[in-house]
């Protein structure tokens, strides 16, 4: 279920990128896209089993434990941090654009 939701989130993010001319909205769309992507990655590693547990090493390691795949989770951790970096740069650029053009709307900035 979450798999479909995540794919939908990606599509909504792309839709936002296609339709929005507002710089802030575009960055928001990118964020939506990234959240969708992150959930998608996690669902890929998720085992739909009752007994599977989170991949955390505890003191009492049982032998026959089933762990969900830890790799995608590690990937998502990295992806989240990268996403924040991109957003931060995007917002600072938005600021600069506002300073230069006094608007957030790409259409009103003119094409040269």
């Amino acid at each position: 279920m979450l798999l479909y939701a995540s794919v939908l989130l990606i599509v909504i993010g792309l839709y936002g990128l296609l339709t929005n001319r507002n710089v802030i909205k575009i960055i928001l769309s990118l964020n939506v896209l990234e959240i969708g992507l992150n959930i998608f990655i996690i669902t890929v590693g998720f085992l739909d089993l009752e007994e599977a547990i989170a991949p955390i090493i505890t003191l009492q390691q049982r032998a026959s434990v089933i762990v969900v795949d830890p790799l995608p989770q590690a990937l998502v951790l990295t992806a989240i941090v990268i996403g924040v970096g991109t957003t931060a740069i995007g917002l600072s650029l938005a600021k600069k654009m506002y300073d230069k053009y006094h608007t957030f709307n790409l259409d009103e900035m003119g094409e040269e």
Partner: protein
Amino acid sequence: MSIVLLIAVPLFFAFLGIILKKAAPYFLLLVSFFNVLALGFISQGAIVIGGYSSFYGIQLVLNSYSLIGLYVVNTLFFVIVAINCFKHKKLSPILLISLAGLNGLLLTNDLFNLFVFMEIAGISAYLITTTTKDPKSTFNYLVLGTIGSSFYLLGLIILYAMFGVLNIRILGNIIEGVVTNKAAVALPFLFIFIGLGVETKLLPFNSWVKGILGKSNALTGPLVGAVYASAFAFVFGNLLRYLFVFSESLLLIVSILLVATILIGEAMAYASTKVREILLFSSIAQAGVAVLVFALGYYTWGTILIALNGFSKLILYLVVNIAVDQVKSDELSALKGLFVNNKLIGAGFSVATLSILGLPIFAGFIVKMNILVAMANTPKFFFVGVILLASLIEGIYFIKLLINFWFEQDQAPRVKYSYVVIYVTLVIALLITVFGVYLEPLNSIHSTLNLVKGVVMHG
């Protein structure tokens, strides 16, 4: 010497440079020079970070292919830094990070790690391009870069879900061996293709290029146009060689995209009257040629082509951007007669251009002929025709450019080039000429690259 140093040393000094702000430009200069030197002492092979088996751990691979890539990227980087490092002192740590990212791109053998390095290189590129004072273009670059890398991530995660591996070479072997219905992997491959296509400037995904390279300065022009372009072309080549498996429909789409990139790129360059635009559109077309050569399986000459184009492009972007910075206009009419007062620069520029056009006694001729002969013998005459047609258009506008730069007495602009630039231009031009006549080096590179077919799996 370990290959990790190539990534670790720049990163370390980047953070040191943030602390010691005054020393940062010197760090930049020293470290980029160190990287070039270090390549001479480095040992080939594979390394796994963290001591896991190569199946899970992040593997860095250094073979002749990545070594050539490293040489090209690090040398070009050093040259650009040597010319620019005191003009943009604040950027020094970011430039170091971008160097680490680029080296990582070339070395890594792990799909996700590649994504991380792509983002590192990308983010530093966004920051570096803010020096052009055009936030709109940078923003466009950022959005497209992020979309591209998102698609790349999507593609790699689908591949991971299907095969449970992220090691490029192992994954490639598995797909080659296991998958019978190639259409099943077409979608993730298309995602990866799109992701890299954005960075490599393939046609419908590359609208960022106009803003970035069309308004470049002496730092961003050569850096994005020559260094980043070569690095991403090398990465693309790596993936095309070890990972990609084309289903029929994917191959059709990819070939259409590449042919469109090549032909329309040349047409756009032909339609442009601004010098920087001419260069950027022509480099779009050349990126298309390089990827096409790799996609058709001529890896060795593709590698040499990218390396050669990297050096030629460096001269072109450097010369043009310095001139544009001083003349304050990049209209061809404003730059007429640029070489009348700068004959040495003009000679180097002409050699680089003629080599890109594939005219004889320059190295470009040898590379182009070998690619064409290989294509004709496969036989893929359609692509031969495409490349020849593209070369025709390319030749016309480049020759027009050269003639305009050389022959104009009345209002020749006065542009000062520093001795470093003149020296670099002449050395590269000389090398292009020597390699065009003395074929041993190119042939030996070709044969070494041919030998590296074996997959490095256990480091």
